[in-house]
Each structure stands twice: as structure tokens, then as C-alpha cells.
């Protein structure tokens, strides 16, 4: 007959609201300590995901962030129902995260340099890009173009939002077009890729930074594991789609630990300032001065990205 021991419940020692287990080294970390250490595991250096407010306060000078377009909300254009209707998923995400959609944009300063910043939050429906996220990235880029301020986009996303169908896919075009105009006008763009940045977000604006920076060991790739497994039979190698893999293959300029990010951005911003306007027609993709057609020019663009 089983005897119920009074001290059986050792698991109670780590209540989940106070402690978090590191997925890398299985160390139990006290939540308050985790928050203090920028959500980096003190034992192995694993970077936990950051919520968007924590991300912005990490990167920007204190109290300088001015959010724009905070009121944008997604609508259910397709009448999309999977296991739950899309409006219910949205409402659930709004309640659990306290933000209206998966991206936030605005202006702020880094070491006194004014920048336009857009940051994504993976906690909101996997950071997926629907029309609102696409709109915010685009508006951030258009504002950076108008004001000739450097643009910084922090990505954390599983990709395009399936619940908005091809209209999500079209956000890839919308954002790339805006980034293209920025690039043509000589306004710098820094893309910061964090865990995870995959699918349609990596296959659009996130890959197109004049400088691409990634946090260590972030999952960054085109096809999610479930999609890849359905298409190819070969075993996926360990560590592929990690920040270091991308660095090795030349698609990321720098892999920077979270504690050094602000300093790195500060250093880059000293060089990456909008080129002075040669004439007022510039700043538009159609201006002959800012955009000469031709093969060579494209090669130059590519080289600058690969650094």
C-alpha cells in the first residue's frame, strides 16, 4: 500500500511564477535576477526573448521613446477560422500581452542620436506579420525617409500571419518597397534580428539591413522546421538557422550579445547617418540622381550588405 510521504513534492521548490528553467543549461533562475541580467542566463549566457517594452528600454535613452500609431488594430478580412476564429485569437493576444498588435514603432534617441525604431514582440501571435505589422514597419521606414533619420528594426517573428492569407504575403512587398526607397535615398537602415526571425519577415525587411546584427544563438531562417520537414526528407543539421550559421555564411555582419547591443548601435550610428541631400528631388525611388539603373548598382548594394 503506497504511503504518502509528507515531503514528496520537491517540484514545489520552484514555483513557475518565481523561477524559470534555462532551456540550454537547465539552470533554475530566479525571475527577478533574470530581469536584472537583461534576461540572459547567468550560467550559460542563453538569451531569453524580450518583450517589446524591455527591448526598447534596453536600446534607447531613458524616456525618449515616442510611440506612433499605437491605435492600429488588425481586422479579420477573410473570416478566418482554424481551431479558433481569428478575432478571438487577436483578442486573446491583446489581453495576454497588453499590446494591440505584434509591432510597435516610434522615435527615440540612442546616445543622443535621433532614430526611428520599430520593434516586434514574439509574445503577440508569434510576432506574425499581418497588415498592421506591415503597416507599422512601412510607416517607420517612410518616416525615416521623410525626416532622414536612421531606421532600426528589431525583428522577432515566426513570419507572415496565416490568418490574413495573401494579404499578409503582400506585406513583404509593401515593406521591401519602403526599405528600397530608404536605401535609394541614402538613409541608413540597421536590422537587428532576434530569436526567432523566420519566414516572411526574414525573407523581407529583416534581411535587407545596410547592417544586419543578430543576437547570439537566435533562430534565424527561411523555412520553419515543420514546413521543412514536410518538404524534404534529409535530416536537418544541428545549429543550422542559428545566428552564428548566418554569420559564417555572410548574411549577418555582427553577432552581438545583448549587453553590448546599445554600445554597438552607438558605434555604428557614428558612421551611419543619412547622406546630405544633393537636391530636393532625391529621396524618391524614381529620381534619376538617386537611382541609376543597371546591373553594377545592384552588385554594389549586395556587397554593402554583406560587409
Amino acid at each position, binding site marked *: 500500500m503506497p504511503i504518502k510521504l509528507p515531503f514528496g513534492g520537491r517540484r514545489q521548490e520552484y514555483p513557475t511564477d518565481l523561477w524559470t528553467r534555462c532551456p540550454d543549461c537547465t539552470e533554475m533562475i530566479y525571475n527577478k535576477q533574470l530581469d536584472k541580467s537583461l534576461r540572459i542566463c547567468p550560467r550559460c549566457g542563453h538569451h531569453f526573448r524580450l518583450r517589446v517594452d524591455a527591448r526598447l528600454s534596453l536600446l534607447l535613452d531613458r524616456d525618449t521613446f515616442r510611440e506612433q500609431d499605437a*491605435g*492600429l488594430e*488588425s*481586422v479579420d*478580412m*477573410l*473570416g478566418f*477560422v482554424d*481551431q479558433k476564429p481569428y478575432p478571438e485569437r487577436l483578442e486573446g493576444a491583446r489581453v495576454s500581452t497588453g499590446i494591440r498588435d505584434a509591432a510597435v514603432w516610434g522615435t527615440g534617441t540612442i546616445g543622443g542620436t535621433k532614430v526611428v525604431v520599430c520593434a516586434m514582440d514574439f509574445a503577440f501571435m508569434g510576432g506574425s506579420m*499581418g*497588415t*498592421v505589422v506591415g*503597416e507599422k514597419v*512601412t510607416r517607420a521606414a517612410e518616416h525615416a525617409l521623410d525626416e532622414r533619420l536612421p531606421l532600426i528594426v528589431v525583428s522577432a517573428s515566426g513570419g*507572415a*500571419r*496565416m490568418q490574413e*492569407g*495573401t*494579404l499578409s*504575403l*503582400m*506585406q*513583404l*512587398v509593401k515593406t*521591401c*518597397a519602403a526599405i*528600397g526607397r530608404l536605401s535609394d535615398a541614402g538613409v541608413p537602415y540597421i536590422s537587428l534580428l532576434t530569436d526567432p526571425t523566420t519566414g*516572411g519577415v*526574414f*525573407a523581407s525587411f*529583416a*534581411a*535587407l539591413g545596410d547592417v544586419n546584427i543578430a543576437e547570439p544563438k537566435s533562430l534565424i*531562417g*527561411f*523555412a520553419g522546421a*515543420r*514546413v*521543412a520537414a*514536410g*518538404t*524534404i526528407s*534529409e535530416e536537418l*543539421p544541428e545549429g*543550422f*538557422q542559428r545566428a552564428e*550559421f548566418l554569420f559564417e555564411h*555572410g*548574411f549577418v555582419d555582427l553577432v552581438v550579445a545583448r549587453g553590448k547591443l546599445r554600445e554597438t548601435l552607438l558605434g555604428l550610428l557614428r558612421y551611419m547617418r543619412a547622406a546630405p541631400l544633393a537636391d530636393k528631388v532625391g529621396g*524618391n*525611388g*524614381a529620381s534619376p540622381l538617386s*537611382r541609376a*539603373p*543597371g*546591373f553594377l548598382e*545592384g552588385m554594389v548594394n*549586395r556587397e554593402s*550588405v554583406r560587409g
Partner: protein
Amino acid sequence: MAEPTTVDVQQPAAPAADTDELRAAVWQRVQQARNVKRPHTLELVQMIATEVIELHGDRLFRDDPAIVGGFCRIDGRRAVFVGHQKGAETDENIRRNFGMPHPEGYRKAMRLLRLAERLQLPVVTFIDTPGAFPGPASEERGVAEAIARSIQLMTGLRTPIVTVITGEGGSGGALALAVGDVVLALENSIYSVISPEGAASILWRSPEYAQQAAVAMRLTASEQLALGVVDEVVPEPSGGAHEHPEETAKRLRPRIAAHLDALAGRDRKVLLDARYARYRHMGEFAVATPTGEPRPERPGIVDRIRRLLDSGRAALVGGDGALPPGVVDSDSEPPLREDV
């Protein structure tokens, strides 16, 4: 006020209509779009154009057989064509990786697009891929970067682009060649943000729900037309393109030619601004008012989209090949209409 009332009455009934009948009808389109006997880019171009000169290689790594391109002459108009290429037989399909490009495919496409820009030739692209290849080789050569770069290039390419979705429009791998001033779609083509199987395995946690996902994503050509992602649906002969490839090409040719002509004279800045605007306004959202109540950014448009989508749906279930009323001729530009 009579009209909104009718919409209110219809709306609860229509979106819920994920019936067996509808599911079967949508799935039949998916299978038609994937039919291996469907004419693919090279076959179509050879039938549409009087002359075809294929060009090869990205000048960086290799020639990807899953993307083809080159020069062609369509009823006397010189153009550059680019498209995904599947194979009709197993051997060719393996060689062409079932139309799933590696990064070098997109870099070849970009090379040809820049060439078209330099020579001031218009571009026609043909879209037919399950998606870009997702394996390690593709990732390590930067497939996402290649797709992003290709999309960006096309948004600013200083020459007209006409895109035709001919079969499977699979996600970013399709979109990388599908940024156009005008987007046409063959009647039985599909266009989706992710394959139905992929959506099912993520949202339903099992690929068995692919048919439900196909219905939910509104991936048929007529529904894409309703969403404004596609500008015009080109009807296929009865039985589908795979049974009558010649007739399909014959129907496509005048539409492509008409759009090339309409775009040809356009000032480059006007052309690029219109292309930017075309994509800038895709998708809808609401803006929360100070009271917290969200208000649609463009009131009424979601209702209109839903109504159009439902008419597309009705036509699907209504059976063989019927298009929603007015679809083919709904073009507002009269000069494009005369020649079918």
C-alpha cells in the same frame, strides 16, 4: 441604407460555409493547380511567343533549373520573361527540383530583371512553385536574402512588369518573382501565404487538415481577385489548362499583350509610384479611437471584400469553371478589353 442591411443578413451565413461541398471544390482547384500535365513556364512561353531565347546562370554560383528566363517576342513585342519551371515527367521534375528554387535561381532572375531594365524591355513573369526550397543548401546560400532582394528589386525596377500566376503561387518563393504592375491569374491557379499542408500542420497541428486550411486561406484565383491581390482572372478552357495547353496559351497571349501595351507608354516615375501604391494599400486595419472603440481605416471595405469573396465562393461551389459574375470583364480600363 438598404444595402448594408442585406449584408448584415448575409454575413453570418456566408463565412461559416466550410461545407464538404465547398471543401471538395476548393481542393479540386488545388489539385488542378498542381497537375503535372499543366503547361509550365517554358511550354507556355513557347506557345505564347513567336521567338524564345533562354538565358542561363546567376554569374555567382550556378544555373538553377527551377527558374527559367530569357528574351521572347510576344506578337511582335520584345520582352524579358522569367518564371518558375516544374517538369512534366518525373526525371525532369527531379532535375528541376519540382519547381522549388534555390537562392541562385532568384539571383539569376534578378540578373535578368536588371538586364531588362537596362535594355528598357518590359518583363513578363510566370509563377508556378510550391515555394522556395527549404533545405540546408538553400539556407546557407541565403534563400531569404535572395527573396527579399528580388522583391525589393522588382518594386523599384524601372520597366513595366506583368505577372501571371499560372499554377501554384506558393508563398515567398512565388512572390519573389510576382511583384508586378499588373497581376493576372489563370482560373485554376492558387496563391497562398503558406501551402495548405504547412498551414494545417501549424494551425491544426496535423497536415490532414490541409483541405480546411485551403478553404480558410481563400487561395483560389477568384478569391484572390476579390482581395485585390490579383487584377484579372483569365478563364481556362473547360477541362482545365492541362487538357488544352494550346488553347490556354491562346487565351493568355492577348491579355499579356494588352497589358504590355497599356503599360508601355507610361512615364517611369508614374509607373513606379503606381506600383508602390498598388502594394502600399494592400490589407485593411482599424484605428482605435480615444474612447478605445476601433474604427475601420476605410469604412465599409471589409464588408465589400467579404461580399466579393462570397460571390467567388458561390461560383466555386456552383461548379465547373464558372467564374463569379463580372470577374473577367470587371476591368475598369476599356482599352484592355477588346481582344479576347
